[in-house]
């Protein structure tokens, strides 16, 4: 303990998890050892996008020596789901996407399990599929869930049984019809985004053991160990006390490991071979088709402004392609409804946001939760409006962006943020308006920018809790249930505990690997960029409780008022008597009375919790309410790029980002989110899942589905941090993990327009698409 970092909040202290990760010591689920009793499972996937299951024959698979069990939908009568309980763990009567699990086998080896899976024969009767979300929302579309009315959903979701619409959020404010005639410029456009995949380097893997005593243990890389426990307990009739989820480091989440995916399938396999752990690891191909993906979107948006550039009205329809099951996805449509304007103050709004069942993989949470999808269109329209009225797009945004205290679309007052400062910083960093020449003839250079907002899309009452506990030498263990996905959750937890207690950062040990629902304090989920804010508040509260307990013991020992005492740099001091008391020893053994006539104190433990209690419901017909969300984080990105006009190849030269994070608990970790997010956002603009006419994914591999490499990523990534404190954030902090990729794609599109004079309404921005658009422009087309 040579280094002693006091008051670590706001300092870029080193990560607590880095050492384990650079030495190979960090254990991920697939690295855990279970000995020779481990069995292997393999899922049988539907080859059809939409079909009825007429019969399943498992006899051949069961007859294979070494095969221990085969499980089908007949074994899983209960529906499961976080928001919309709309799916069986194994399909029962119908399949709704290619890749859906219809059966699972358990065998003594991986190879046997794979062989047995091929021996399960399923008889299907094909049904007409529908893939496009807009088409699926029409009355004549085949209905994927005829039993929707029987499903269970929370009271803030509004599905339309009898159709494919699993959620319809309505936002009504002002009078759009009256506003259009006052507009000097109007842009109306349809935008389409394909489904894309998270592509974590670690594919989904789960190991489950169902003991003969009825205790069930699941090991999974999870953003939501507690939510998984809750869903499994509910669906399978297990007591929460007997259902245990253990989750070590997660090898990339990005929302794909939030909620529940294959984990329930594996638990059901384990039930069939009680006492034996069963492991299922998704191949990269399975990861693409059988785990969650980002939803597709069909957006039709119309926005108008007056001659001075003031935005007056917006009308928008969003149709999210939710896939075969919309569970988590209904809340993405809802979040995109109550934030449908993007970060703009617009007086007249008519917004309709739908999630729609489609015969594609399950669309679910992905970094940004609907916001990257809706900002794709909004941010291009804002650029086009600025162009139409002859205004600089940065200035247009400064003028129209939402500001602190304004009444936003839902009627809620905007919590403190400084989006104008973000625009100023990002544009300055890129040299806005001073376009540099292209590097070679045949290349064209362009600048573009986009702004964003995002609120934590959470139910009204997601809880967090934390425990702190001292050791004899005054080192402190911090127990949290939030997950380390790489974002730095454990590091900021340690910083906050140290800061609130008044001890050096180096004294803190984070006891959260693995997160274990049997031992860790409750945390709703590591999603929604909520951990620094919500879990952080609970850590702060736990540390403050421990601090008060220490001060009370010492005050009594010194016969002083605890109000006059403080803990500084790990030492209790008195402002009154100037006495000092080391924390060592006393935080476990307490302090002796004079002449050792008895003792005071004892082991110091602090507990803390946080739950937002102020979020209100929103009116079903208008989306209006006093507090729609906890808060918003905002930011701006500006991009400098170059296009090779002979090939359509885009080279992103620089991305400059500025985000208002309230308070950077660890500034360098904020910057690493900004940098990584910029490249994730850039990559997402060039990604897409492509299906054939039968709904089979044509690019389920990293050969055909490319993500950004070290050569694709821009060499220059600039980050600026703005700190406008959040009222209920720890030290003012709010989240930033998702925001950093929300507006990258439209910022690129705006820069492409600057370079080429061409607009792109649909993602991905493939070189082919850009090349063809350039040829069309040369030929005199639009």
């Amino acid at each position: 303990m040579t280094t002693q970092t006091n008051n670590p909040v706001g300092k870029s202290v080193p990560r607590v998890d880095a050492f384990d990760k650079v030495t190979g010591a960090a254990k991920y689920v697939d690295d855990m050892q279970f000995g020779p009793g481990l069995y292997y499972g393999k899922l049988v996937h539907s080859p059809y996008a939409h079909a009825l299951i007429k019969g399943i024959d498992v006899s051949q698979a069961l007859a294979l020596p070494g095969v221990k069990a085969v499980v089908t939908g007949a074994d899983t009568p209960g529906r499961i789901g976080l928001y919309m309980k709309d799916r069986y763990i194994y399909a029962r009567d119908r399949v709704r996407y290619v890749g859906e699990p219809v059966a699972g086998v358990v065998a003594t080896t991986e190879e046997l399990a794979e062989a047995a899976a091929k021996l399960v024969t399923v008889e299907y009767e094909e049904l007409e599929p529908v893939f496009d979300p807009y088409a699926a929302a029409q009355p004549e579309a085949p209905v994927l869930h005829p039993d929707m009315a029987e499903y269970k959903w929370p009271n803030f979701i509004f599905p339309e049984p009898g159709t494919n619409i699993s959620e319809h959020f309505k936002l009504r404010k002002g009078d759009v019809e009256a506003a259009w005639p006052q507009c000097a410029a109007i842009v109306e456009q349809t935008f389409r985004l394909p489904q894309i995949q998270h592509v974590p380097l670690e594919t989904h893997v789960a190991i489950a053991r169902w003991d003969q005593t009825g205790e069930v243990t699941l090991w999974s890389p999870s953003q939501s160990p507690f939510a998984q426990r809750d869903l499994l307990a509910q669906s399978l009739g297990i007591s929460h006390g007997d259902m245990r989820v253990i989750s070590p480091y997660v090898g990339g989440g990005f929302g794909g490991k939030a909620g529940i995916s294959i984990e329930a399938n594996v638990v059901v396999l384990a039930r069939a071979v009680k006492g034996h752990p069963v492991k299922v690891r998704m191949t990269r191909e399975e990861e693409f088709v059988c785990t969650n993906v980002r939803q597709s979107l069909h957006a039709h948006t119309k926005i108008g402004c007056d001659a001075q550039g003031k935005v007056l009205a917006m009308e928008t329809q969003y149709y999210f392609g939710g896939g075969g099951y919309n569970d988590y996805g209904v809340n993405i449509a809802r979040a995109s409804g109550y934030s449908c304007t993007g970060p703009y103050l617009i007086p007249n709004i008519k917004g309709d946001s739908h999630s729609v069942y489609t015969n594609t993989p399950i669309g679910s949470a992905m970094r940004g939760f609907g916001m990257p999808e809706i900002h794709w269109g909004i941010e291009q329209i804002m650029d086009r409006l600025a162009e139409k009225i002859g205004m600089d797009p940065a200035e247009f945004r400064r003028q129209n962006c939402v500001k602190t205290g304004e009444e936003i679309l839902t009627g809620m007052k905007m919590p403190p943020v400084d989006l104008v400062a973000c625009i100023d910083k990002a544009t300055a960093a890129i040299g806005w308006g001073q376009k540099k020449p292209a590097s070679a003839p045949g290349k064209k250079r362009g600048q573009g920018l986009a702004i964003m907002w995002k609120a934590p899309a959470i139910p009204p009452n997601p809880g967090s809790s934390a425990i702190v506990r001292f050791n004899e030498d005054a080192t402190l263990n911090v127990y949290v249930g939030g997950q380390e996905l790489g974002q730095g959750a454990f590091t900021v937890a340690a910083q906050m505990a140290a800061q609130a207690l008044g001890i050096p950062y180096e004294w803190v040990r984070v006891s959260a690997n693995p997160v274990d629902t049997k031992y860790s304090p409750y945390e709703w989920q590591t999603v929604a960029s909520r951990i620094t804010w919500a879990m952080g508040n609970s850590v702060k509260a736990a540390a403050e409780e421990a601090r008060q307990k220490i001060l009370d013991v010492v005050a009594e020992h010194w016969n002083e008022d605890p109000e006059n005492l403080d803990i500084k740099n790990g030492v209790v001091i008195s402002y009154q008597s100037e006495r000092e008391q080391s924390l060592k020893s006393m935080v476990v053994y307490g302090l002796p009375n004079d002449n050792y006539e008895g003792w005071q104190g004892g082991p110091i433990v602090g507990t803390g919790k946080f739950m937002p209690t102020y979020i209100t419901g929103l009116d079903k017909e208008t989306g209006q309410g006093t507090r729609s969300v906890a808060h918003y984080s905002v930011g701006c990105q500006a991009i400098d790029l170059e296009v090779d006009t002979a090939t359509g190849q885009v080279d992103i030269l620089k991305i400059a980002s500025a985000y208002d994070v309230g308070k950077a608990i660890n500034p360098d970790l904020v910057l690493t989110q900004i940098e990584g997010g910029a490249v994730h956002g850039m990559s997402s603009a060039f990604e897409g899942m492509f299906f054939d006419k039968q709904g089979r994914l044509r690019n389920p591999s990293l050969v055909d589905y490319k993500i950004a490499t070290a050569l694709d990523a821009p060499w220059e990534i600039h980050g600026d941090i703005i700190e406008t404190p959040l009222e209920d954030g720890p030290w003012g902090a709010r989240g930033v993990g998702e925001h950093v990729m929300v507006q990258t794609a439209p910022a690129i599109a705006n820069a492409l327009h600057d370079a080429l004079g061409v607009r792109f309404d649909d993602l991905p921005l493939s070189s082919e698409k850009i090349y063809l658009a350039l040829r069309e422009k040369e030929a005199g087309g639009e």
Partner: protein
Amino acid sequence: MLHEITFTVNGDPYTLAVYSQQTLLKVLREKLGLTGTKIGCENGECGACTVLWDGEPVNSCLVLAVEANGHAIETVEGMSVGGELHPLQKAFIEHNAVQCGFCTPGMLMSAKSLLARNPQPTELEVREALVGNLCRCTGYVRIVDAVLDVAKNQ
């Protein structure tokens, strides 16, 4: 069919019986318990399973274990010697080049091999050397900075 192979891993000699179809990746992880080498795609595309084969980086998912007979293999577990972290490991920590950590072992292997054959690489050469190691978290910038920093100081 089983084959007996003799090879070294991180300098230690091993004689093992391996099946014809077993990959080096599976043998390292399952027979030797060296789980620092990760399974990402088993298709040679992601680089999470990169190990050094007589000093050259290979995707261990694409190499059969029988082929390793007589060769020297190095994994991330062999990087720190005598309780001291390798300069690249230190630089990855100092530059916050690690997020989820799943690509890190493979990145370190590719970087180590690069610096062995080219002690003073340019930024372009570093990026080219790491192009087969995918990272979804960091945007690569800190990883490249860390490798260049080690090159500068060695």
